């Protein structure tokens, strides 16, 4: 049986990749995917703990996260679509109209 620490390390690595990509990527789609990656990294640790502690609540949280992520994807992709239509680019540096 694979020890729980393996899962947690994998989760941390995935999360770290997500954070780094979130900060350094310029493409909106890529940033969005990084967010999804972070969410799923968290999901992984939830599931691992749920199995290890033999409690169902962790898995229920995962369902919530997946549902929220789905809703977020719907809204987020719609926004990205609109941004692309207006800017003809997905470069996040150019989305700064709200700056003073």
């Amino acid at each position: 049986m694979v020890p729980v620490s393996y899962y947690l390390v994998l989760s941390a690595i995935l999360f770290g990749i997500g954070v780094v990509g979130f900060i350094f990527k310029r493409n909106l789609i890529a940033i969005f995917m990084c967010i999804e990656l972070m969410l799923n990294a968290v999901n992984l640790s939830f599931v691992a703990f749920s199995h290890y502690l033999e409690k169902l609540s962790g898995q229920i949280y995962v369902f919530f996260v997946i549902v929220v992520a789905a809703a977020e994807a719907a809204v987020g992709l719609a926004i990205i679509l609109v941004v692309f239509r207006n800017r003809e680019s997905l470069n996040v540096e150019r989305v700064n109209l709200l700056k003073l």
Partner: protein
Amino acid sequence: MILHHLWIIPVLPLLGAALNGLLGKRIPQRTVSWIGNGSVGLALLAVLELAREMAFLPPEKLPWISRPFTWIVAGTFRADFTLYLDQLSLVMLLVVAGVGFLIHIYSVGYMSQEGGYYRFFAYLNLFMFFMLLLVLAGNYLLLYVGWEGVGLCSYLLIGFYFLRKSAADAGKKAFIVNRIGDFGFSLGVLLLFWTFGSVEYDKIFGLVAERPIEQAGFGVMTVIGFLLLTGAIGKSAQLPLYVWLPDAMEGPTPVSALIHAATMVAAGVYMVARSNIIFTHAPKAMAAVAVVGCVTAIYSASIGLVQTDLKRVLAYSTISQLGYMFLACGVGAFAAGIFHLMTHAFFKALLFLAAGSVIHALSGLQDIREMGGIRKRIPTTYWTFLVATLAISGAPLFSGFFSKDEILWQTYSSPYGSKVLWGIAVVATGMTAFYMFRLVFLTFHGTRRFDERKVHVHESPRIMTLPLIALAILSVIGGYVGIPKVLGGGNRFEEYLAPVFAPANRGWLAAAATYSHATELGVMVLALGAAAAGFLIAYVFYLRRPQLAEQVSQNFHGLYRWLLRKYYVDELYDAAIVHPVHWVSDRLFWRAVDVGVVDGAVNGLADQARSAGDRLRRIQSGNTRSYAGWVVVGTTVILTFLILGLQ
């Protein structure tokens, strides 16, 4: 019926004021006139009915006191909404409602072409409410409410043409100068409460009557007397607070007639007469009343000699006549003072209304040097003006003769009076006759000095001349209620008011009786002689040989200028009070305290907040990735704290 519902009398004009003030803009001018005049007319009817009912009341039931409700209760302090009816209140009610009603009717014609017609009537009705409240009040606090209320209406109506700067300034001047007097008055009321534990007339008068008369030193009664006198000086425009009344002529003429001649300015006299027992217990304050009145009478009559604005001459004449009333009260002849108040209300209201009619006829001209020769064109105005002039000059058989003669005689004979004051008052009588006939001759007689091509002289409409005629009749017969005994009359007026002044007058009437009839007649003839001399001089100067007046003003140029500039008192007050106050307000309170301290503190805080915000603003780069970085940093910091904190 009205006896048990006294409150109806002041409330009627209040209703009129509310209706006209709130709805006046939306209803036609005709309706406004009906509401304005109707409410005052009903009040007058109520007063007449009240007079009828009072005649059947047994004398021991007076003063009739009604307390419809308790007004203020705070600790030991208690003030009811007390209405106090006695002979004095009734006389004042009749004068205020009667003259007020006639002036309301006149205003319908006079104001018909003016803007703000409904506003005018709303203010005028509000004034009637406060004035009726003032004379009906049964305690000093309610009197004070009416007192301040008429002051407010006076301010509003002086500044009625508020787009004209001089009118707005005159309103402010009246209000501020009155405030000085009112401050003294309010201190007096507070001292009364502090001394007697009540502000109710019946209680205070009862307690005062038991105290000894303060012959020497400055006791509490003397202080109260002086404080009340301060209030009366402000409201009745006596020296040294008279400066607001001439400027108050900026208001519409009916206002000058109602407020600044007949009723409001007489409130000070009424208050002194109402507090007669306080003043007789403070002989020093009483003497001050007489001296102030007498000096004011001659002082302002002398200014009136040379003024050239029709309404301003009348204003100085009003101040002078109020001085006579003060003189009367100061020598203990309260009834004579009230008598003169009544006759003066008739003839001075008439003078102002007739002057308004002249101004109306000459399309706004007010300078008497540019008038002349219009007596045939506006006969009603001329004859009524002449009647009022005869009355104020003290021509025999006219009302002013009886009241003024009574004052002069009492000044001469009363133990409070003095021959010096009497002499001054007689000289002032001569001056009165002079400046009044000067007005008549310059305005109505002689050659026309205005441009006849520009001004179409026309008699005023019936609605304006009818009140003139009514007041002219009153100016003649108003004196017949008080024909002195020496002329075969019964002096009914004085007898009627005697119960009000009885406690104050103990022993005083007896002293007056020691003079013989011959002395009294002699005094009367002297006053008549002074008036006749005034008339003759005016006749020679302004009708026979007009160049003579010019010559005299050239010969006494310094004196003439001094009088024309009103003894430079306005300039003196400006230099001594207005400018220093301005300077302190401007330099110290505005530039130093307000700008430096108050604004400095507020602006300093705002500046701090803004510079902090400026620095914080830099985080808002608009760069999404930097936001993401900050989120990570923030999360890390919070997590670190949480984890470290948990260990």
